[in-house]
């Protein structure tokens, strides 16, 4: 049976954490400032969409004919 190396590997991990070798895998996903400016634009878009022909017609089509599900 292979020698159990758990303790050694564990200590190696701690060393990597201490030295910063083990790096964080993260996804920054920056956006512009939403609260001051964009919020108003998105509110406008929502209102326009709410009253749009596109939304109305899509709802009508969906209500009239349940579409086929591809998934």
């Amino acid at each position, binding site marked *: 049976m292979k020698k159990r190396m758990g303790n050694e590997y564990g200590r190696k991990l701690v060393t990597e954490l201490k030295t910063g070798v083990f790096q964080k895998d993260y996804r920054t996903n920056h956006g512009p400032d939403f609260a001051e400016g964009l919020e108003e634009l998105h509110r406008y878009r929502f209102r*326009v969409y709410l009253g749009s022909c596109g*939304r109305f017609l899509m709802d009508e089509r969906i209500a009239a004919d349940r579409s086929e599900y591809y998934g």
Partner: protein
Amino acid sequence: MDEKEKVMSADNYQYLLDKFDEKEITSRYQWVYDLMCDFMEAEQIVDEAIISSDILNHVIVDYFVDIDRLKDFQNIEKVHDSKIYAYLSFWMLRHKPIQVIKEESAGKLSFINEKFVCCLLRSYLFSEPENVPIMNNKKKVVDTFVETLLYYLKYRDYSAKNIEMILLAFAAGRGYQYSVDYQNA
């Protein structure tokens, strides 16, 4: 325990006010509230349902708690709109701030929060550019997406992360199609 840990472990959310501007919290609350009012007026259900401000409090608090965690871990200064929509949608679906007050014949309101969130996500996906007519041979695939989105929010396991992924996937598909069209032009 350092100061940050003490604040975080308190049994309240005061720490959010250290992390976010009061104006930002108020403004996000008002934004969501306004959208729900507009939706309820458009759907003509103002006499049949109300917006519970107490429940909306929980939506906004949980949203900011999540965004705060994300910002810390992902090293984000300002989150992308896809996250704002995804996390707000998730917590609205969980807490359901639109409450039905009609006792009978309210079947069509059973999933009113899901319908609102679906409308919100649709407005995000379909409003830039606005009012684009869908081509006849593409209507089916687009309608199926929207219909399945609502079904998904009603019956399936959703998370803020997979709502975000839905939004990103849609944007990527649109980007791919623009590129194909440009190449073929």
